[in-house]
């Protein structure tokens, strides 16, 4: 028995309206390719360049709880701000973030990362210094590598001390594209 798209959407919308979902997600289009975006009651919880939902469901459940549901409505604010960002109209995000379950060091690094301005770059070492752990550049690199909310938490603005791009979860071409969009390259 096929569930019609209309019936399916009605259920998903009602679930979100009634606040019965721990984390809602959807796949959105962007100039750098499709993104899987997830939001909980606390705020934006994840952005992923890997967009096969089946691959992400367990990870999302671990972040916020088992009631994971795909729903366009659940990520409306994030979708809007991302669209504006990719159109070059938004230079800072006004979204609440769900950073539950992360280590204190990770959160302090991400907080500093969030303050790196649009269109500028910094280095792993400089970020390590700013969280008061000047010798922890490598650990900062690991935090960037595992950043679960890329783009909004701008790990693409962090480069090697010689200025090379080093690495990026979405691929170096995506990192470069984001820096170009922001006029940093």
């Amino acid at each position, binding site marked *: 028995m096929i569930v019609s798209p209309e019936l399916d959407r009605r259920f998903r919308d009602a679930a979100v309206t009634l606040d019965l979902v721990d984390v809602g997600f959807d796949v959105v289009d962007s100039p750098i390719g499709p993104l899987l975006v997830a939001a909980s009651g606390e705020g934006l919880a994840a952005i992923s360049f890997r967009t096969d939902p089946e691959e992400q469901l367990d990870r999302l459940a671990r972040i916020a*709880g088992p009631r994971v549901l795909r729903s366009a409505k659940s990520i409306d604010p994030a979708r809007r701000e991302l669209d504006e960002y990719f159109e070059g109209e938004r230079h800072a995000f006004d979204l609440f973030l769900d950073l539950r379950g992360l280590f204190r060091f990770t959160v302090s690094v991400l907080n500093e990362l969030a303050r790196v301005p649009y269109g500028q770059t910094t280095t792993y070492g400089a970020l390590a210094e700013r969280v008061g752990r000047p010798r922890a550049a490598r650990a900062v690199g690991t935090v960037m590598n595992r950043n679960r909310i890329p783009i909004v938490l701008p790990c693409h603005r962090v480069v090697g001390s010689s200025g090379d791009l080093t690495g990026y979860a979405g691929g170096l071409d995506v990192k470069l594209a984001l820096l170009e969009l922001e006029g940093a390259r």
Partner: protein
Amino acid sequence: MMQAVAIPPFERFYEEHRSDVLRLLRRRLGAQRAEDAFQETFLRALRAYARLEHGEHLRAWVLTIAHNVALDTLRRTRATEELVETPSTDDRPAYAELADLTDGLGPKERAAVVLRYGYDLSYEQIAAALGSSEDAARQAASTGVRRIRRRIAS
């Protein structure tokens, strides 16, 4: 010791069982009424999902919920048919029927009122759904109702 079966993310559970649920409801209620009952079934499942202790027998569990929703629907229909004077009601789900009344309320109060008077849940269940104490759920529902009364009276 056997390890308890993990509770799957709801999306996977829903994708796996939605066809069976719709089939059962259509057989019992016909195509049209099955649609609202379908939504109601998975909303009930979602409400209880956070309190599940393991992921066993989920198919039987959701089909039981669907069965109960079908019974409720049939009971409601019979009651309406017996009351000749009653104007015909449409089949909107409870939260939609109450939407006009509850529009001005905050999210907690609205949820408490809808779950109590629209879905007839106990305060214990409402508390579980809202993640609050039973007293807080009772308080939210009664504040909500008072607010609605005041608005209707004015």
